[in-house]
């Protein structure tokens, strides 16, 4: 077998005039088992080059690397925390709104009843004004508070829904 081509490639290799493809041909040639004696001295070099391509990081490198990458990521979880808080707080907001509305309307009702009492006191003489007015007062209170509750619940649902949208 004629090794002229390989000998020429070797000369070109040491002159740095080989192409990447020709260098690959040399590595393939020297990876054979039966390299002729006068070329065998170069087998170590080219087989070293081939072997060194297989050098790799250990298997668990990715795990360690991903842990470091996760640690550098800006925390996206902040937004979630706020959202969770809103949901947790929702029943409280609702209850607070109901109480606030009940108090406001209750007070407004009391004020209205006060005026009514004054009117009744001046117009009706035969009927005991205290009994009547307290009955009326209670009726109005119960009615208004139940309305207030409904309204407050609706309002708080709307306001919570709006908050969620904003987020």
């Amino acid at each position: 077998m004629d090794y002229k081509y390989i000998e020429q490639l070797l000369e070109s290799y040491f002159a740095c005039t080989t192409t990447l493809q020709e260098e690959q041909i040399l590595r393939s040639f020297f990876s054979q088992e039966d390299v002729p004696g006068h070329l065998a001295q170069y087998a170590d070099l080219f087989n070293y080059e081939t072997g060194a391509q297989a050098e790799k990081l250990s298997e668990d490198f990715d795990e360690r690397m991903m842990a470091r990458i996760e640690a550098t990521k800006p925390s996206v979880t902040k937004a979630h925390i706020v959202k969770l808080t809103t949901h947790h707080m929702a029943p409280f907001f609702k209850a607070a709104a109901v109480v606030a509305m009940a108090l406001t309307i209750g007070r407004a009702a009391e004020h209205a009843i006060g005026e009514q009492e004054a009117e009744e006191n001046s117009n009706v003489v035969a009927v005991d004004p205290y009994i009547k007015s307290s009955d009326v007062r209670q009726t109005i209170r119960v009615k208004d508070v139940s309305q207030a509750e409904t309204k407050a619940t609706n309002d708080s649902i709307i306001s919570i829904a709006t908050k969620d949208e904003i987020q």
Partner: protein
Amino acid sequence: MDFKHDILPLKNIIFRTALRIVMNREEAEDIVQDTLIKLWEKRNELEKVENLEAFALTMARNLALDRKEKMDNQHVSFDDEEHDRPDEGQGGTDSHLMHLETSGFITDIINALPEKQRTIIQLRDIEGKSYKEIASVLSISESDVKVTLFRARNELREKILQKKSLFL
């Protein structure tokens, strides 16, 4: 820019290149981690980078040169420690093993070369990179790459022929 898809696959070429400079596996792995983190932090600028691999290797080489300098200043000698010998114990087929018996010899010659020659041998003869890409990694001209590679390959040839004459 996705870390696992675009950046992580560069790990092994960075590792081998860094290992050729610092000649210590642990240090080389640290350099890989630092390089990949830096790339990830710069991910928004990487779209403009023409050759991401060359960019990453330049970064890794600079980190490796810094570490090597620190190691040398601390008078820590890694000569007695593990030399990288990828051919020993891993990689390669059975037919390779026949030829690899004496390749600690080649490792020693390459590791004794100046860093620039070692890195260029690594990028050309082991990674199979073009002169253009190597020039980009080292920030030198293509003709500088060829001149340096010429010196490295001929040092290898000289040592191989010397060894042969010893056995004759």
